[in-house]
């Protein structure tokens, strides 16, 4: 080891996000040679908790695995229980589930891009994106009564219907937010500061992305055409028209552009849900709980969320296991950060849209 090569601790707090994760960086001068990651600071043993609660109570628990992907967890959990119970949900509920999921996706992607502007030192852009995101936060609060955990999903469908007045409100808010999001996309794609800081940074070649099994915008930013909404369609997605967004730059900028372009696909999906949603009931009753095992996966804002359940005929699950998107994306940081400078670590880290509370459960 040369005199210029040393190990540098970074974290566990405030490395891009206010969640604890600890890095051991091997650096040569300013350049990163190797990355080692230590997590576990907020491990909560939630899977063990889930096995002490009945199937219905676990909807509330799983919604608290993560904040930005909260809806994806209760959604996928409800799906896995429905698969185990062979419970078909009403048609209207499928559309309502997609609507809530896409509203959350817009808010999540805008949050991540805002943080990127914050890390890059572009404070006014950070504040602007967060202000635009407030439009979606208002939608969440108005429609679901909550700004973060929507509590919309339940086993057998959704808890609350959305009436004509609320649909008109959602459509109006989409008309307001869409041009503002277009402006944000243009800034991220043309502003000199943002391009200098993000383009060509944190390269993850497609071969490495595939080998590491990365998911979500991280995979799609490296040219992989992977999206559970397309690969294993669920809820109302098979009936809706939207595009799979892929970028091939393999860098931080590509991952950002995937997220920003996906905002417009989400708007398209919400509009279609508002227009095409059939009338009818929004939930069905749970039947007898059989001895069974089932699997379900969905596309959360950060990528694929997977749930596995074993039921034993009682109201408590014999086993409930889930895997979050961040879990698959952390290891890719070792590839992305090699050759980067220390000052770029936070930007690269943010580009995987990491969630520590998700990862550690």
């Amino acid at each position: 080891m040369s005199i210029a090569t040393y190990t540098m601790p970074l974290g566990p707090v405030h490395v891009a996000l206010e969640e604890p994760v600890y890095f051991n960086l091997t650096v040569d001068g300013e350049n990163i040679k190797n990355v080692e990651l230590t997590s576990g600071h907020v491990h909560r043993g939630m899977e063990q908790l889930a096995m002490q609660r009945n199937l219905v109570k676990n909807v509330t628990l799983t919604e608290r695995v993560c904040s930005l992907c909260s809806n994806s967890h209760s959604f996928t959990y409800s799906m896995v229980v429905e698969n185990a119970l062979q419970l078909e949900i009403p048609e209207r509920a499928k559309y309502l589930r997609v609507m809530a999921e896409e509203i959350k996706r817009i808010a999540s992607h805008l949050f991540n891009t805002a943080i990127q502007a914050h890390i890059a030192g572009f404070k006014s852009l950070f504040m602007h994106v967060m202000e635009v995101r407030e439009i979606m936060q208002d939608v969440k609060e108005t429609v679901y009564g909550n700004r973060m955990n929507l509590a919309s999903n339940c086993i057998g469908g959704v808890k609350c219907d959305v009436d004509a007045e609320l649909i008109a409100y959602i459509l109006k808010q989409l008309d307001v937010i869409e041009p503002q999001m277009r402006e944000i996309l243009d800034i991220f794609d043309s502003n000199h500061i943002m391009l200098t800081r993000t383009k060509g940074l944190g390269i993850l070649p497609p071969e490495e992305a595939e080998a590491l099994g990365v998911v979500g915008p991280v995979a799609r930013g490296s040219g992989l055409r992977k999206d559970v909404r397309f690969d294993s369609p669920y809820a109302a997605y098979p009936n809706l028209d939207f595009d799979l967004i892929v970028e091939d730059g393999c860098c931080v900028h590509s991952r950002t552009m995937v997220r920003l372009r996906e905002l417009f696909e989400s708007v398209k999906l919400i509009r279609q849900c508002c227009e095409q949603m059939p009338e009818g009931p929004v939930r069905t009753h749970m039947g007898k709980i059989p001895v069974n095992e089932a699997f379900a996966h969905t596309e959360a804002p950060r990528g694929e969320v997977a749930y596995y359940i074993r039921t034993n005929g009682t109201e408590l699950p014999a086993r409930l296991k889930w895997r979050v998107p961040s879990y698959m994306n952390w290891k890719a940081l070792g590839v992305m950060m090699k050759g980067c400078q220390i000052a770029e670590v936070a930007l690269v880290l943010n580009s995987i849209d990491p969630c520590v509370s998700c990862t550690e459960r």
Partner: protein
Amino acid sequence: MQDIVKGHPRLIDALSALCAGEEQIRHTTDFYGNGYHWFKLENSSRIKDAAKILKGFRARLIMISAYEDKQLEQIVKELCYHFDVEGVVYNLTVTQNAEWPIVPSITPDFANADWHEREMMELYQIKVTDHPNPKRLFLDETLDAGQLSKAIPLSIMMNGASSKDLWERILEGKEHSA
């Protein structure tokens, strides 16, 4: 539910050959027509062969679920490996028991199995062989392995046992400094 389950026939045949009999294989769909194939492998060493076959089909490992069950006073551990091939999910279960107490690592074939295997080693005390980096993932090395096998009621956790130990350590430190 649909009668025809999506999937790759050659892959299904190859994985079926690793099971002890037809009754160890199931094919299911959800209400959207997505296919799920379930295989219970003959023994835990078969997962290595299955991983090689799946790699040939460019499978992606989604996750590994560890499961612990008590059968006739004996703890039986099971592992369910979930793989994705072109949107179809292949679930492979292996049992870890007295006859087959270990499971080989599939990290050499699927790099993203690394964290899953390390997690099941520390939380379920699953014995994994040939793992390239078998250190703890979440929990500190000083904690016992198999934490997820234990349910510690909050009343016991907060009955002062831990705080007594804490104060003893503090006092010990104070005596040393004095």
